[in-house]
């Protein structure tokens, strides 16, 4: 049973560029959340997707956008990259039913470096 997978593992981009990160949820999960973890910080919630719609959003600018596909996989897009966007981007999945909603399973993350 595959867990949450993310690609790519590492990415280097230049300031002003755009980036797309990908996530496949754990088998059987239908909800995907994205987090940004800066060095020395805890994960910060970006947004969550369920039934191909953005259900909740954290305090992140519109440069951060996402998408969820019918197979529940998801993409995170960041436009006009800033140096401050350098971080580990984590994807988490869960099944949106009572009792399991809080047990989010995380992927290993994508390390984004903006130069």
């Amino acid at each position: 049973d595959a867990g949450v997978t993310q690609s790519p593992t590492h990415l280097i981009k230049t300031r002003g560029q755009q980036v797309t990160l990908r996530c496949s949820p754990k088998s059987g999960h239908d909800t995907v959340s994205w987090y940004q973890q800066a060095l020395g910080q805890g994960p910060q919630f970006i947004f969550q997707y369920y039934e191909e719609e953005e259900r909740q959003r954290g305090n992140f600018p519109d440069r951060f956008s996402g998408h969820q596909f019918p197979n529940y996989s998801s993409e995170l897009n960041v436009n006009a990259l800033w140096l401050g966007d350098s971080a580990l981007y984590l994807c988490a999945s869960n099944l949106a039913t009572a009792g399991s909603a809080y047990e989010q399973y995380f992927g290993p993350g994508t390390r984004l470096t903006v130069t």
Partner: protein
Amino acid sequence: DQQVKQNSPSLSVQEGRISILNCDYTNSMFDYFLWYKKYPAEGPTFLISISSIKDKNEDGRFTVFLNKSAKHLSLHIVPSQPGDSAVYFCAASAQYGGNQFYFGTGTSLTVIP
């Protein structure tokens, strides 16, 4: 505004002794709390949770205590093992069924053999 705080960046404990990791929160609407464990180059792994209707939850060597009046929770690991060495994050959610989690900054636990 950091709504979940872990004020100890690191903790060292001898193998076999108790490890106590602390977490404070400011939002009185938080009603569900979780602890995650993170090894280098891996994503956080769910460890244990507690809802606000309880003050204690136990799972093997891991026990989480919740003090709602003090807005404080703690994770006890007894006995500590070298494999427990990792970064531990506490997280909180403000709505049962809601899925936005607020994470602390983490505590790096080292268990010395």
